[in-house]
């Protein structure tokens, strides 16, 4: 048994009122964080006539979802977003795991310069390079294509993820890799066969984050795509200005955009929490 317990919540009050207050506080917090999402879900389930009085009436229907799913543009936006997010995750990991490993395992001018570069580019606002990137992709014929959207998405994650990956590798003792090299492993062998397997939880956390970031990203898709490669965030933002009055359809699309993110996060939650703790 520990010598002392953790500090009490609001000491000085009687125990029962402390417990009640604690429970109320927890409930209030959960409510504040969940309410907007619950309200969105409720709106999406209301028929068109009931959407303006969401709080009144008990009719529920899935018609809005059915209508949204007949819209080719929305369906293809979902598929595009899923495809780009998945590919961006794979490529980001390939690129950043090695870059983070370099930052963690080597000291010296090269490592310092690379770290400085990464920090500087992490600071530069997206708009400063995505805005002219519009012209770059156009002159390379990449505007409004999968490649033209995928590669900038991979590029943007390099800075932050290399930095996170460095932190993860810092927490892993390198002596195993040295032992492997003494036993005749090459540097690449030590990196791929020893370092990467022990960093797998962290890599999984990174994969979850990367997928979510890409799925949720808006500015890149807005600037770098037109009609051929619609992405779900852009389609929704257009929706809200063009069809601002059809809130049931809006809500249904938004709920469907939430579902994959929720599944990924729910599945990946333990990796993220464990990964962040290293």
């Amino acid at each position, binding site marked *: 048994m520990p010598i002392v317990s953790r500090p009490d919540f609001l000491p000085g009050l009687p125990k029962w009122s402390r417990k009640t207050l604690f429970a109320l506080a927890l409930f209030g917090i959960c409510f504040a964080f969940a309410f907007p999402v619950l309200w969105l879900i409720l709106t999406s389930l209301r028929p068109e006539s009931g959407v303006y009085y969401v709080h009144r009436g008990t009719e529920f229907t899935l018609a809005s979802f059915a209508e949204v799913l007949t819209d080719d543009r929305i369906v293809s936006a979902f598929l595009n977003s899923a495809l780009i997010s998945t590919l961006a995750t794979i490529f980001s990991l390939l690129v950043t795991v*090695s870059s983070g490993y370099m930052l963690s395992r080597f000291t010296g001018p090269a490592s310092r310069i690379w770290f400085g570069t990464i920090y500087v580019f992490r600071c530069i606002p997206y708009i400063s390079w995505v805005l002219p990137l519009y012209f770059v992709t156009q002159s390379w014929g990449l505007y409004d294509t999968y490649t033209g959207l995928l590669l900038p998405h991979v590029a943007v994650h390099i800075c932050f993820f*290399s930095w996170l990956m460095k932190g993860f590798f810092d927490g892993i003792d390198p002596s195993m890799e040295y032992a492997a090299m003494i036993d005749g492993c090459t540097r690449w062998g030590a990196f791929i066969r020893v370092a990467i397997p022990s960093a797998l939880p962290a890599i999984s956390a990174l994969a979850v984050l990367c997928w979510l970031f890409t799925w949720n990203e808006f500015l890149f898709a807005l600037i770098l795509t037109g009609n051929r490669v619609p992405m779900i965030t852009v389609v*929704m933002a257009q929706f809200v200005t063009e069809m601002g009055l059809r809130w049931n359809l809006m809500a249904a699309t938004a709920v469907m955009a*939430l579902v994959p*993110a*929720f599944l990924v996060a*729910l599945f990946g939650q333990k990796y993220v929490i464990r990964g*962040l703790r290293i």
Partner: protein
Amino acid sequence: MFGEQQRFMLFLIAPAALLMLLFQVLPIVIGANASFRDWALYNPKKIWVGFSHYYAVLSDPAFLYVVLPNTFLFMILSVAGALVAGLALALLLNRPFRGQKLVQTILLVPLMVAPVVAAIMIRWMFNDQFGIVNTVLEAIGLEGQPWLVQRWSAFGIILLTDIWLWTPWFTLLLLAGLQSLPKEPFEAAAIDGTTTWRVFRFLTLPMLRPVIVVCVVIRAIDAFRTFDIVWTLTGGGPGRSTELFSLYAYVHAFLNLDLGRGSAAAIIGGLIILVIGVVLYRLVDRIAKA
């Protein structure tokens, strides 16, 4: 020329460096070039015009008296709000109780919500005719507000949305930080009968400072470039009163079709945040070494 180790290091970073060169460095150079030229999207003459775009941006009252104050105010308030709320939640969750897993999962919800989706939800909740907020206000006898068409209420809602989105991020990282603190100082304090406030002020806060500073720096830099929630909630309106820096550059480049001026604005903003970023980095370094 290079030793075996140098070659290994080079190969490790080569793909990342190549991607950054093509998709970040090159565009920035092209943008810098465009910012010195007469580059209207409908009629790109590309004539050299020197610093006139920079002059136009820096003497634009909308930029000086609306966009810059908005951006800094937003950056400071959103980081401060999310930090205070996140720290409070982390302290609350840093004790065992029944249902902790559930609360933690619910707290993670905003982390999964796309900023665009969050903005849509909030916009719907604060809809002046049918939104739940006005409905509740009217039910308790208060007057409903046209939230998104008044400058400061619109700004407040943008801020609220951002704090809602990022508080869990602070909570998660600070909670991880709290749980990795050594137990002994807290036990010593408890034996000495120190009050909760003094434990927080003189033990928890100083020991947690490195984590707090890193979170604040990352978040502050990200808050500076906020685009999506403003775009979806107000589009910079009413008028242009809630425009932030990213929106200003976007509007000039793609709505006013003046790439030169948009690029100049983007470069000015980039330089401002770089200065802030370097100063903050020094701060992190000093605190990490202390």
